């Protein structure tokens, strides 16, 4: 880069082009800061700089608040029930906890509750287990994790008729 003939306003004699500094440390004396010639490999300074960029604390607080709200807005997930002809969709945001969710699901799928009929028989009692599919695709039992974590990880709900569980109960009689 040839700057000799370039017209510039500047202090007489100061034509040296300063190279960029390393991470901004606290400078101990002015004459230490000049040219680190070959040091163009500037590490990421961001993690070490305190107080920059200036972010108004009000905006930062708002941002986090809104991020949480936005993550939660419209958390519609599909709900399938074994044996039911069609699926439903629920908005998880509407419920404050697992109890409310279970009640809502019972209301939704009440018409399909085969368990009622079979229980009257006395022979079988078909109960159901609610499970959900998480972000990794695994089938998880409802209720293990705190509600907030469940909200962000649930992708699909599944109501399973728990024939296996009943077998255990029968054997243990």
């Amino acid at each position, binding site marked *: *880069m040839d700057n000799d003939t370039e017209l*510039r*306003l*500047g*202090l007489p004699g*100061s034509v040296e*082009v*300063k*190279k*960029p*500094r390393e991470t*901004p440390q*606290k*400078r101990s004396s*002015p004459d230490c*800061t*000049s040219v680190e010639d070959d040091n*163009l490999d500037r590490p990421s*300074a*961001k993690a070490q*700089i305190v*107080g*920059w*960029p*200036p*972010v*108004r*604390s*009000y*905006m*930062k607080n*708002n*941002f986090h*608040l*809104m991020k949480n*709200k*936005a993550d939660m*807005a*419209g958390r519609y997930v599909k709900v399938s029930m074994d044996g039911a002809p069609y699926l439903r969709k629920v*908005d998880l945001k*509407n419920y404050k906890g697992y109890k409310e969710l279970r009640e809502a699901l019972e209301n939704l799928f009440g018409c399909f509750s085969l368990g009622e009929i079979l229980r009257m028989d006395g022979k079988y009692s078909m109960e159901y287990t609610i499970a959900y599919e998480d972000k990794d695709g695994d089938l998880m039992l409802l209720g293990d994790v705190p509600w907030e974590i469940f909200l962000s990880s649930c992708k699909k709900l599944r109501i399973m008729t728990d024939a296996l569980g009943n077998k255990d109960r029968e054997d243990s009689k």
Partner: protein
Amino acid sequence: MPYFPQEVVECIFSYLTSHQDRNSVSLVCKDWSVIEQKTRRHVYVANCYAVSPTRVATRFPGLWVLTVKGMPHFADFRLVPRGWGGSVQPWINAMACSCPRLEEIRFKRMVVSDESLMLISRSFPNLKALVLVSCRAFSTDGLTYIASSCRQLRELDLQENEVNDRGSQWLECFPNSFTSLESLKFTCLRSAVNSATLEGLVARCPNLRTLHVNSSISVECLSRILIRAPRLVDLGTGSLSSNQMGWYRRLFYSFQKCKGLKSLSGIWFVGPRTFQPVVYPVCGNLLSLKLSSAPWILKSDLLNVISNCPRLQKLWVVDRIGDEGLAVVGSTCQDLRELRVFQSNFHGPSCWVTDEGLIAISTGCPKLNCLLYYCAQMTNAALMTVAKNCPDLIQFKLRNLDPVKPDPVTNHPLDEGFGAIVQGCKGLKRLSLSGFLTDQVFLYIGMYAEQLEMLSIAYAGETDNGMMYVLNGCKNLRKLKIQDCPFGDGALLEDFTKYETLRSLWMSSCEVTIGGCKALAAKNTQLSVEVISDLNSISGLSLEPSKNQRAEKVYIYRTVAGPRTDAPTNVSIL
């Protein structure tokens, strides 16, 4: 000078509204000073510790409007410890005694307690406006006093305050006979507001023109409010999203009724592809659009809205708009006076906006007065383009996310670019620098920035010369804010006379020492030199610090009130 009777002089002075004019007039002679005192209606105190409240109140007994600012600006960025000071109580006490006819009270960055609010509600029967910006330490209980007692209130404006929100009962304290409200802003409150109460208030206040609600207000409530108040000029919405069927159609019809809406903000959350159709009826008239609280609006939705707002003069967005988005702004909004591009990602670099966006804006919007720009990188060429295209710039704040980043194209510091800005924009009053900068840029600023009143510097400069160029050159400088620069005692002590015109100086993480600060304080009795240490530091300043110990945070301001008496233990006034 011809002789005028006192009444005539009073009448003439009543036409003087500017503070500078009034200040000048009061210095002419004793008679004029007395008349001016009697007739002054507005007082603006930029630093609450520069003058004693009692002195202001007794000198200007006819006050109608009082504006007081407290903490230094960097308090917004948490650089000033809590408990530093800035209480409004002494001001309220003094005004209650001597200026009971006060009509408007405005506080910024001050500590307001519920007791203060109660005192305000009881002491000023004529109170028409209460504006609290970036204040803290009060709760919604304090607001109940204001709502129930201030019968003539026209404006209640709460912006960006830290409020202890105990619920929205305060809103219900406005009596049924209360109809004078013209402006209500309560965005900073978090708790849910009773829709019926708010709608009732809106319905009985026919002069309501400004309403900024908080995010708890639903779309349905907003639609009803707009139907009742179609003459709104300035609206801050709540959440623009709903599970109910057809909500957007109702809101659309409501917006259609608002023919006079000029200013829109809030927009806390809005679903994809609904924003533009819903606000379409008002876009054509919009002069101001503030979208900094809605960083998740889809870019396509955002640009759809903006491209329908050709008359826009003020635009606040987040950097996700990207350079291409700014190009759309540049080509649509030729009338733009103010643009603020905020950072959206607080935890890492964001690369959405660069020097190219700035060039696009400056090319399309030559009338720009005010520019705030958070960006990933900046070039000298871009800054020179801005200087050439936007000579009317009054305020320019560049926030490079990497504060020591040079021009990535040439690897030079950004001295030349900012030099061009101060040369080309002759009316520049406020400047905030960032990027890799040497002493050179300060030489330019000292030489060319004649109108500069406020300068904010971070991670810039190499020697004391930098600061000295600025102090010696900028005759109109009022506020100088410096963080993390290598300026030390040499620059601080070089010219004492400068501190008579400088309103305040903030230096944090620089090279000034306790000894330097003490020397400055000793030389100048009308200067208050505060050395602030963090609350956690045990050693603090109670043990005699050595002269050469660095002063981490220094806040220096001129004052006629002497050293303040309410400083906490971690603030030492030398």
